């Protein structure tokens, strides 16, 4: 069985543009890569 994952966007402007098109809120996660 394939485990689904959250498909994160990494580009702020693209995410906001997509949110406008889909009329959705954006979940912005500031993550620490370490």
């Amino acid at each position: 069985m394939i485990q689904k994952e959250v498909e994160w966007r990494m580009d702020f402007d693209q995410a906001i543009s997509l949110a406008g098109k889909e009329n959705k809120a954006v979940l912005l996660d500031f993550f620490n890569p370490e």
Partner: protein
Amino acid sequence: MGAVSYPDSLVVNFITENLIPLRIQSDAEPYVSNFKLRWTPTLITLDPKGVERQRTVGFLQPMELIPSLLLGIAKVDFDMGCYVLAMERLERIMTEHPTCAVAPEAVYLRGVAGYKRDGAAQPLKDAYEKLNADYPGNLWTRRADPYRLL
């Protein structure tokens, strides 16, 4: 968050269905400065124009993350004047996640959204009565205290 909460299948489904998920590294400018980031994990709910509507700092278990995200979306609806939609989401928190940390805030905000929608005080009084019955002593119960006089 990445090891425990994000892999949870309920969390994956909730985020996929309801949000545009965006990850920014904690040293990436100009976002760190623009959003005044001081600590991770920090989760911010933005409206479709990129305006911040909710922020949480610190780890959230899956059972707390989903209602917290739902509250963030409800705040987007509320701030955009979509009170009926906000109330539907807040009621979902109240019924599906009544013991979660944000449930009292959801009850409070639902009362305010009802007042904004109707222009009548009854939703505020209802919110106080539910808070006093279900969450006595909670911060949001104390904040709603004046509404008992309505």
